[in-house]
């Protein structure tokens, strides 16, 4: 560890944080736009700073795409009155939004988002227990929601918090179990090594499709997305755990949710779809030049984008489950399936070795 390491790490953290936050803002925009398209309406199409209308073709086009909507949304969140209802448990009420965002941001630290650029590995922390670290941090994500529900000191948020805690624990188990075949096949916990393995053997989705399906569905449950958004279910809980929040404190919860979605999209890309590699154009080897390094990062972001669209698409295509169906799916379907998956994978690997 030396001075260089610290400088480069700080730069990487700052850039990743900036990119992630931008992506969060534009995910919200994409969500609104895709929702609009699915429901056959135009969606956000008129917010723009005044100078934009003087740009010939690009200006109106970006405006119609809702390109400036995130700026307006963010500004609105900051300028709204930050109201603290009477009777809330103040410390937890202030703490919960932060606790909701931090784990999602921390998960990104171990995901390799590119190969090499300027002699630096494009991952913030190349941990040799990368996967376990992500699961550990993801499992902390539930505290934000639970504390928000508890702090509000009222009925509906409380129910939302209770629901979230049971739901996230249940699906964490299915999720953790689903990844074990991947580890068995790749033989490593380090995410960079898993990507390297995939460059020589092919993407892991080909070897562990069942794992991927369980992981994908569990990711929906872990990030509290429809069809598993029981913690905030508007029709049942009037908004759930975040009912009492307003202004920026409220905005932190969607921010955390979208950051968690991005993190789980990154995990899926890394674990099952070869991370920053593509099997052609020589994109599967660590980059020798700066443009190749950039290309790797773009490949990674493009793959993540696909999963983000899937996340958003599913939200507007499927109705919410019932809570007992959720528990049934998690414990009585996914857990045995994941265990059988582990056993079969282990037996196959044992026979072939």
């Amino acid at each position, binding site marked *: *560890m*030396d*001075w260089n390491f*610290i400088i480069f790490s700080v730069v990487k953290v700052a850039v990743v944080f900036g990119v992630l936050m931008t992506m969060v803002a534009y995910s919200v925009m994409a969500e609104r736009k895709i929702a609009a398209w699915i429901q056959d309406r135009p969606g956000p199409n008129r917010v723009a700073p005044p100078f934009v209308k003087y740009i010939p073709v690009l200006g109106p086009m970006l405006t119609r795409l809702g390109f400036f909507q995130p700026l307006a949304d963010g500004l609105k969140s900051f300028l709204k009155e930050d109201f603290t209802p009477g009777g809330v448990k103040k410390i*937890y009420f202030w703490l919960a939004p932060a606790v909701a965002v931090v784990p999602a941001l921390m998960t990104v630290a171990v995901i390799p988002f590119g190969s090499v650029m300027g002699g630096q590995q494009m991952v913030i922390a190349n*941990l*040799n*227990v990368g996967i*376990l*670290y992500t*699961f*550990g*941090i*993801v*499992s*902390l994500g*539930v*505290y934000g929601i*639970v*504390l928000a529900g*508890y702090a509000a000191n009222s009925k509906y948020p*409380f129910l939302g*918090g*209770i629901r979230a*805690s*049971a739901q*996230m*624990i249940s699906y*964490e*188990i299915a999720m*953790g179990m689903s990844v074990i075949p991947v580890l068995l096949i790749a033989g490593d*916990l380090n995410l960079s090594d898993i990507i390297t393995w995939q460059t020589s053997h092919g993407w892991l989705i080909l070897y562990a499709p069942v794992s991927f399906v369980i992981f994908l569905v569990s990711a929906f449950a872990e990030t509290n997305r429809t069809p598993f958004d029981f913690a905030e279910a508007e029709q049942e809980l009037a908004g759930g755990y975040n009912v009492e929040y307003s202004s920026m404190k409220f905005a932190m919860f969607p921010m955390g949710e979208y950051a968690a979605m991005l993190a789980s999209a990154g995990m899926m890309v890394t674990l099952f779809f070869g991370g920053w590699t593509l099997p052609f154009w020589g994109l599967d080897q660590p980059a020798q030049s700066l443009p190749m390094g950039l290309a790797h990062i773009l490949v990674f972001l493009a793959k993540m984008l696909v999963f983000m669209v899937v996340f958003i698409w599913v939200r507007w295509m499927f109705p919410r489950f019932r809570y007992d169906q959720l528990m049934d799916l998690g414990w009585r379907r996914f857990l045995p399936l994941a265990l059988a998956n582990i056993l079969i994978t282990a037996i196959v690997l044992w026979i072939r070795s």
Partner: protein
Amino acid sequence: MEAINNLISQGAVQDVLFWVFAALTLICAILVIANPFSRSPVTSAMFLVLTIISMAGLFVLLHAFFLAAVQILVYAGAVMVLFLFVIMLLDLKEEQRRKIKLFGLVTGLIAVGGIVSVFLKALASAGNGTDAPKLEGETYALGKLLFTQYTLPFEIVSVLLLVAMVGVILLSKRKLE
């Protein structure tokens, strides 16, 4: 620059981090059981979470990354969430004012005594730490140790968990009686 580089390579950062995490662990652990500001069980549970996380930090400083990750994954992420779940489901208003009972005090002290004696014995038999085995690539090494040298204790622990599970099923199915 040179001076800072030297400091870093001599492990000054690790030392500072050790003191920070050690202090955090102890302070949070004390606040779990004797918080002068709040007797709310939720607050106690949250401080226990902080204790667990700062202990994971200590494990990281010992290069035991696997232990650190599992510590957070299992204790902070699963066990403590269940604790919170139960605390929130039970209405514990009465618990907030409850005084310490003699029975709880005695059994608690016995448990603490047992744990302390185990720790003291372990500390007395341990060296000064310089010749401790390196745990690099520790996931592999740990797995191998668990399934070769320590198979019997490992299996006994898993049977213990099985017993607990059977107990839970029995308790939740009252109709069986």
